[in-house]
């Protein structure tokens, strides 16, 4: 199991790191372009630095953010990285905690799976909807449906993870619970 899953996990992390780096770089590019546009000789000398060639930066960052969130939660975020209320979870005995894992895991897993079809129903019409600027970057084929599709992957991957966890709880082979801490930089 570990021999297959570890490289896959590392690959998932690498993809997330790449998206993070791309977002960072694109933002810097956007600032640089805005700034150089004011220095008149720059766009005159390097016409490709024209701000109008970089209208896509904002929407591209938004798309990266979307993919980062759903790709991340599907494959990279660990249980202890999640924002959660864990006072009760830590206070109860092991047996009850296993019960918690099974109940919540099934609720999340089944809920998300059931929502795949009706969600896709809402995304289908987006095959017609153009993005505001991304075709400048990717070509004319890209539609909003393609940008949103990552959410469907999330709806498949997360239930799989939770069912695996429920299975482990059944066999009582879970690892020690851990407080959410250093990883959280949002507060």
């Amino acid at each position: 199991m570990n021999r297959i899953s570890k490289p896959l996990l590392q690959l998932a992390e690498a993809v997330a790191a790449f998206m993070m780096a791309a977002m960072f770089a694109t933002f810097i590019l956007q600032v640089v372009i805005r700034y150089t546009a004011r220095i008149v000789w720059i766009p005159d000398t390097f016409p490709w630095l024209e701000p109008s060639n970089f209208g896509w930066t904002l929407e591209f960052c938004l798309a990266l953010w979307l993919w980062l969130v759903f790709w991340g939660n599907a494959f990279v975020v660990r249980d202890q990285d999640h924002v959660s209320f864990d006072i009760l979870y830590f206070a109860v005995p092991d047996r009850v905690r296993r019960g918690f894992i099974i109940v919540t895991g099934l609720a999340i897993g089944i809920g998300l799976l059931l929502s795949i079809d009706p969600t896709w129903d809402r995304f289908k019409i987006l095959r017609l909807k153009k993005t505001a600027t991304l075709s400048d970057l990717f070509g004319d084929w890209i539609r909003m449906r393609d940008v949103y599709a990552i959410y469907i992957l999330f709806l498949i991957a997360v239930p799989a993870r939770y069912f695996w966890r429920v299975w482990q709880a059944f066999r009582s082979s879970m690892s020690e619970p851990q407080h959410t801490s250093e990883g959280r930089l949002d507060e």
Partner: protein
Amino acid sequence: MSLAFLLCLVVLFVIAAMGAPIAYAIIVGSFVYLAASGQSIGVAGKVLVDGLFQSFILLAVPLFIVAANIMNAGTISDRLLRFCIALVGRFRGGLGHVNILASLVFSGMSGSAVADAAGIGKIIIEMMTKSGHYTRGYAAAITAASATIGPIIPPSIPMVLYALVSNSSIGFLFLGGILPGLLIGLVLMLLNGWISHRRKFALEEPIALAEVPKLTFEAFPALLMPAILLYGIYGGVTTPTEAAAVAALYALILSAVFYRALKLSTFYSILVSSARSSASVGIVIGGALILNYIVASENIPNLVAQALVGLDVSPLTFLLSVNVLILLLGCVLDASTIILVIIPLFLPACRELGIDLVHFGVVAVVNCMIGLITPPYGILLFVINAVTGIPLVEIIREIWLFLAVLVFALLLLILFPGITLFLPQLFGYAG
């Protein structure tokens, strides 16, 4: 309140209480709401994705996370610390003052309290305990208390989240946080001075004055960062969101080029861990967007407005009661959860009562930051416990006085909106 909404809340709270991620509890709760009110459960996903894809200001969150991670990985924190020691280390309770001053300076670069505690905080706790003048509980407690300043002085991730749910301007929120942050630094220093005298903490070996210029020179590029950020935002070079990227780039250049303390492999793991924390906060933001949909769909803002007309509550009574409630919730909930899930419930009432949303936002963020150190659930306590191994009981035993002065500062901010609003108004805020 409809039956569907009630069912949604019950499911949400039960699943969340059992330890499921808040975001997933909200998503499952929203499925129950949608199904019970005759809507398609596919709406939840659409609302979630639409909201995340549109909220341009949210992009500041991952970028500030990257910036904080880079600063902690490079030697920026160490250099700042040595500079602070040179400045205030010679007074009684010196390292305590250093701790607070370092947090103040660091808060001008980072938007996260956890980053402060886990980075610069960890180093200074070691220094304080090694000096032998402080108990490790005191060192940890003052670190936790001063780390709360991080997201109060700009930049600030919690303020970005608040701007998202309240539709207020990040620029003015950031400005509004500066004086309150300095005020908190001041009351903490006064408390530290008072305790140091009472407990007769021994004096530190002062750093020779001849060393000060060199230490200042070394720390200078790092000290420039808050200035660059503020100039970037208020001087019109960048939007607040872009400022986050500039902060990250500046930290990267400092660590990698100037201080030569950042390896490529470290940078890679920074990207991975930043992606991980961004994704985990991103999904909570998504949950908040779904809750917003439910609240709108239930027409709750109108109901609140009608209820308030009959009640005749004064704005001050309202502010005080909401703050007591947030303080209590802060004992058991995350700041992100409170800002994204609880605060939006009060915003319609604030608008109705004519409470300024920038003032309310800054007060709420300060309150939530106090929640980071209130037991039993205080993420700063956990982080410090995790990175230093100091037992939680010892930290909590020393935290109470710090909590008391922080609450006192909060009260001042509630009673005197001018402290918060002075700077925004100076820059043209009309509210």
